[in-house]
């Protein structure tokens, strides 16, 4: 009986407090999915292309004639 009480006081209560602290620190990020992109990590998702309306794309692939040529722009790496 005395041994059980010692175990409860000196092991279970500290363990409980530690568990509470861990939950307080990491609990929110465990529940909520974090931002998926991390610089340097590979991007495994399928390519996607967003256009404001479907008519924006005029030339289907494989049609060299009448295609719009790129004039300017900018590039960058991070």
């Amino acid at each position, binding site marked *: 009986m005395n041994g059980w009480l010692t175990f409860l006081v000196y092991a279970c209560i500290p363990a409980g407090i530690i568990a509470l602290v861990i939950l307080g620190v990491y609990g929110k990020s465990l529940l909520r999915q974090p931002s998926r992109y991390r610089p340097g990590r590979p*991007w495994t998702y399928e390519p*996607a*292309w967003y*256009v404001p309306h479907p008519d924006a794309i005029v030339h289907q692939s494989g049609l060299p004639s009448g295609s719009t040529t790129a004039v300017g722009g900018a590039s960058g790496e991070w």
Partner: protein
Amino acid sequence: MSGDVAKVSGSGNGTVQYGPGTKSFDQAFNANQLTRMDEALTLSSRETGLVFSVYVGELHAPTRAHAEALFERLTDDAVLLAISPGQRTLHIVTGPESSKRLPNRACALAALAMRAAFANGDLTGGIVTGLRMLADSAGRI
């Protein structure tokens, strides 16, 4: 606001598909992020009269040539933001009409702001910032 943005699936080499994309891509952005991108894309296109489009995915090397090849399928007044998070590369491509309103200097400034956001891991924020800056530079119709 949402709903009029079309998504083109595929890498740009195959056939163009409209409508709801595959599930594997939708996991890359959550609903909130997609709404923010949708709003920025629609508003910037509507305000400026230019056609802004955003490509997120792998670009074949040389990446600039791939981005320009993708641009060939758009109209003269289009602006393409091609972003490859895996290769940590972004390209802004303007056409014959859109380059008159968006000089290379304005594109470089937007690219700089986008790079800063991407380096912090904020993909959606970078895209939205880039679209807003380009739309501000181009001005209203």
